[in-house]
């Protein structure tokens, strides 16, 4: 059942992605100042947004775990963080490619860029912490706590371009600026691509949680074996 759902989501995401690519490269015109390269935005920002949404979903599941002590929530949170981390990395890589072309440098310690990198580090630390702890309940507890603390930084990442003006361009999406900064046709594709990435992310999470579930089943069986 779950596999089927995962496959379906992945397929839908893929199809949508193809449509978007068609739109991007064959329908939408080049951007006035930046030329062709601006299209990287269609992956750059959505990837980041999907990642950040993921962290907050993981946050909710962590809280759920703490309140219910049910390991399913814990492993769900963990797998979401893993997937989100991938998307954050996509965001940073596309970003720095874009930076290389627009600003002529791979990287600069601008607040947005740094906070994004810090965010990646924090959640990489989250995965490391999980590996370092063997006892499942303890692992759940501590990593949940770390996730909650980590999400503070995610807020900073999101807000940094509004608080500080430096290298990284400011808000352009109409949900943030109230419109006028971005051509509607362009923004439509932007969000469609966001949706595509989201579907793929969910598919990945489903696959990931399935592995977790099986491992949990195995050691609950082992417990039974010990009990008798």
């Amino acid at each position, binding site marked *: 059942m779950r596999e089927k759902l995962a496959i379906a989501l992945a397929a839908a995401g893929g199809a949508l992605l193809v449509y978007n690519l068609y739109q991007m490269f064959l329908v939408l015109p080049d951007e006035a100042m930046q030329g062709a390269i601006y299209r990287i935005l269609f992956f750059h920002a959505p990837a980041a947004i999907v990642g950040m949404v993921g962290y907050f979903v993981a946050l909710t599941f962590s809280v759920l775990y703490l309140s219910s002590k049910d390991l399913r929530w814990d492993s769900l949170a963990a797998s979401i963080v893993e997937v989100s981390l991938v998307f954050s990395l996509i965001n940073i890589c596309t970003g720095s490619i874009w930076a290389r072309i627009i600003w002529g440098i791979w990287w600069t310690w601008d607040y947005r860029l740094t906070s994004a990198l810090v965010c990646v580090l924090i959640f990489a630390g989250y995965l490391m912490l999980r590996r370092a702890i063997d*006892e*499942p309940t303890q692992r759940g507890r501590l990593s949940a706590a770390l996730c909650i603390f980590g999400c503070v930084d995610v807020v900073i990442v999101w807000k940094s371009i509004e608080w500080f003006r430096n290298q990284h361009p400011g808000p352009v999406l109409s949900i943030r600026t109230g419109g006028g900064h971005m051509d509607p046709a362009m923004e439509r594709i932007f969000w469609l691509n966001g949706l595509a990435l989201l579907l793929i992310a969910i598919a990945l999470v489903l696959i990931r949680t399935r592995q977790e579930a099986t491992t949990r089943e195995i050691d609950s069986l082992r*417990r039974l074996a010990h009990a008798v």
Partner: protein
Amino acid sequence: MGQAIEVDHVWKYYGDYPALRDCTLGIAEGSCCALLGRNGAGKTTLLRILAGLSHFQRGNIRLFGTAPRASETRRRTGFLGHGIGVYEDLSARENLVFFARIADVPSVSQTADGWLKRVGLDRVAAMPVRQFSRGMRQRLALARAFLHEPNVLLLDEPFTSLDDRAIAMLSQLLIESRERGATIVLSTHQLREAMAIASHVALIENGKLRYSGERTQDMLDDPTLLYRLHTELGAA
């Protein structure tokens, strides 16, 4: 008298090793229950769970109707673990004062001094615990556990390295606190002392509760009786 402590169908797993298997035990208010069992049976595990120091996977536990970690429960219980839980670098008196403070006992320093006298450490009250002998530490730890007059006392091997006089002192303390209406659970391997002061006994083997009930006269006469009757392997 109602049940002070109710343990029903509790399972505790460490990883996938079941340290407690389906334990069900009721301890009446004002009774003194001796928790017996071989090394690795699960005594400490049970006591730590009662003290709210470790979660358990299945079952339910109530102390006077409240869960172990609840703050009112903690205010009611006194715990003495394997590690004695006092600070090496503080003096005996400073230790007691500190623990009296966090338990907000009304008159901190009087209480501390009173207890130092009770356990016979008044002459070394100002000495850092680092310089105490093992028995002196154990006495201090006892004072710490009794400090805030708890109604539930969880003592893990309280007789360890106490000399004859200290043991007499402890038995006296236990009797008094039972008169106060306190409920006592203690684990030990010194069967004679245990039988002498216990009103009930519970026997654990490999995490299973083998026997629990009144302490009968013939147990007093022959402490190892219990092991021989109720464990699969019998006594040594």
